[in-house]
């Protein structure tokens, strides 16, 4: 065999660890978790693609139902919070504690604002008669589409898919914000140092992944 020489070992917490893929456990675990998240969103996005394009199913024009400019702004917010997250990571890896805390606060604010805007969007849509079970008869949206002579077919599936996909994304962002608050508190307590800041990187991966999913969702749900 003679493969003895290959692996390299490092010490963590008194135990010898072989870094099989050259990545520490927290980061590896997070990536594995993200792989499963990819499959989860595959189920939801795949269902959307199949329901909408798998047959000659009618579908309302999303740009006529949803507020694109508002959501574009929201997308921008999420991208900004992703940037602030990497800036926080860059700061801590240079030993800049103040930078870390400020950028983390900015990230929390960005995420929270995204959720806030989404809640506003939901309330607005529900008020206008867009429900998970479809557009309410006589609701604002239904009236507007009919008045404009636009087709409303497939609105039941549209409502279901829209709320399920964006809802689960929103749920992920909300969980992310909660975790991020916790991380921020820890950062203010000086938990992360230039030598030890794996937590920042790991939570950052989750945060960017949620951003990445939103980039896909925004394109498919709002723009197609």
């Amino acid at each position, binding site marked *: 065999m003679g493969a003895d020489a290959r692996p390299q070992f490092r010490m963590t917490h008194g135990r010898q660890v072989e870094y099989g893929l050259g990545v520490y456990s927290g980061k590896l675990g997070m990536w594995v978790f993200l792989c*499963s998240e990819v499959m989860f969103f595959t*189920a939801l996005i795949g269902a959307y693609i199949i329901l909408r394009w798998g047959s000659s199913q009618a579908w309302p024009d999303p740009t006529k139902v949803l507020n694109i400019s508002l959501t574009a702004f929201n997308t921008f917010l999420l991208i900004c919070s992703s940037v602030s997250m990497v800036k926080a990571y860059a700061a801590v890896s240079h030993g800049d504690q103040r930078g870390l805390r400020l950028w983390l606060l900015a990230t929390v604010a960005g995420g929270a604002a995204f959720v806030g805007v989404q809640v506003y969007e939901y309330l607005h849509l529900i008020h206008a008669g867009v429900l998970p079970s479809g557009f309410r008869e006589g609701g604002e949206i239904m009236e507007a589409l009919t008045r404009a002579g636009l087709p409303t077919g497939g609105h*039941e599936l549209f409502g279901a898919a829209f709320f399920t996909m964006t809802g689960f994304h929103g749920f992920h962002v909300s969980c992310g914000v909660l975790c991020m608050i916790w991380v921020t508190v820890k950062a203010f307590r000086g938990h992360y140092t230039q030598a030890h800041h794996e937590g920042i990187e790991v939570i950052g991966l989750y945060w960017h992944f949620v951003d990445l999913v939103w980039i896909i969702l925004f394109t498919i749900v709002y723009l197609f």
Partner: protein
Amino acid sequence: MTASTPTAHGPAGHADHHAEPSFLRKYVFSTDHKVIAIQFLFYSLFFLLVGGALAMLIRWQLGFPGQPMPGAGVLGDDAAPGGVIAPKFYIGLVTMHATYMIFFAVMPLLVGTFANYLIPLKIGAPDMAFPRLNMWSFWLMIPAGVLALAGLVVEGGSAAAGWTAYAPLANSPDYTGVTGGQVLWCLSIAVFAASSLLGSVNYITTIINMRAPGMVWFRLPLSVWALFITAILAILAVPILAGAVIMLLFDQILHTHFYLPAVGGQPLLWQHLFWFFGHPEVYILILPAMGIVSEIIANGSRKPIFGYHTMVYAICGIAFLGWMVWGHHMFQSGMNPILGTSFMVSTVLIAVPTAIKVFNWMGTMWRGRLWLHTPMLNAIAFVAMFVIGGLSGIFMASTPVDMYIHDTYFIVAHIHYVLFGGSLFAIFAGIYFWFPKMFGRMMNERLGKLHFWTTFVAYNATFFPMHLLGIAGHMRRIYDPNAYQFLQPLQPLNTFISVSAFALFAAQLPFIVNFFWSLFRGRPAGMNPWRDNGLEWTVPSPPPHGNFAHTPRVLHGPYEFSHPDTVEDFLPQDQPLPARPGA
């Protein structure tokens, strides 16, 4: 990592720095992988018993349709008026039997108990990479199990759309007559998915990152290989089920229309998503069993496993192909015939790596010195029975033959030959084999062999005739076969199966007695009662918190049995091969 590591001499010393943990921390909310494994063991054995009891009710109705079952009067007038099982209750039984067995018994046994127990011990790690997540993975199974059990007692009965919960049957109380039970089923599966996810993240990370020095990939025991690949399957397949079940749940409670055709929803979307999860799930249920059996066959034969590398590649091959075969559950659903052909080809190809494994096990036994201890008997039974399940699968893979046997008892026979004859015999083998390590005491061999032989005979008497039922066209999941004239002559066969099933259930009594008796009165096991090579046998039974006093150094593969240069017929992985006298 320049972390301050005060104790560089291993986790045992590390643990000494802490005060003795409280009882609650040590045995209930424990983060020790061994305790969690044992929690999973009791949890899933409980569900195994409940699932088995439900099967007895099912078999009573099929063996003696319309006759009152002794003692069934206690189930109440909704379920069994006058002791006669009602149709709705019957379908609930069929649904919950499969749900309990698959999600709450066999899967937690294999990837809860054995994965948790074996992975760190076999790779020489002190614990899992994320012990706290590991604890959560067990404690999430509690609400999942409670939700699943609640189905039996809620108003309106348990879920009654089969464990496959085909839409649109599962969508609406109008179709099933079930109100809350179907929602509970969905919730339970969703929570189960979260638990499975946490477990799998742990297993993958642990196996990649926490192997002891020298434990290179091709020195990993086959059980660890199998569990690793299984965890990968789970991490990628279970979220699909979660997504599908959540959409089903929304259809039920938010009145969405994902699977309802009236406004364009797709009933077949459910089937595709379900089986895209469901077929990898089948391999999640069998690969760890194969791994366990590989360990025990090598040990019982006192020989290296035949073709170790091929065995590893076969596991990977099965897992890889397993992603491309889900459509073979849907040949008669109105699927595009071209798609059907491609699914048929990928399905029959899975027979190849599977055959390799079977023949390699036989090659391992060839010219061995078979030590027929109870685990070994169960492992050989696994091979013998799994072969039947594998071969009957070829009938279904052949699309035209499937047209006839689809949804008949042939399928029921097949799944039980794979899941009971396969997974469950392997689980019994594993329990008998690692019980000494888990509890420090041997299980009784005499009772073990009694359990094995009675189970083996009763099992075959129960499930083999089901092939005949299927060939005669007997549909599955029907409450009373006598509603069809062409099934009436099969009644004696059905009665025979039922009597055998009762015997099979009764045959588990020696196991239960043995288990609890040995827990307290079994012969002390010592460190390595089976004279095995795995790292888990180099530590005391049961192993202390942190497992290894010193991180072991792995010097060779796990199957160095009967090496010509050794004195004993085994060589633990941390022991060097003696220098050849002539060299």
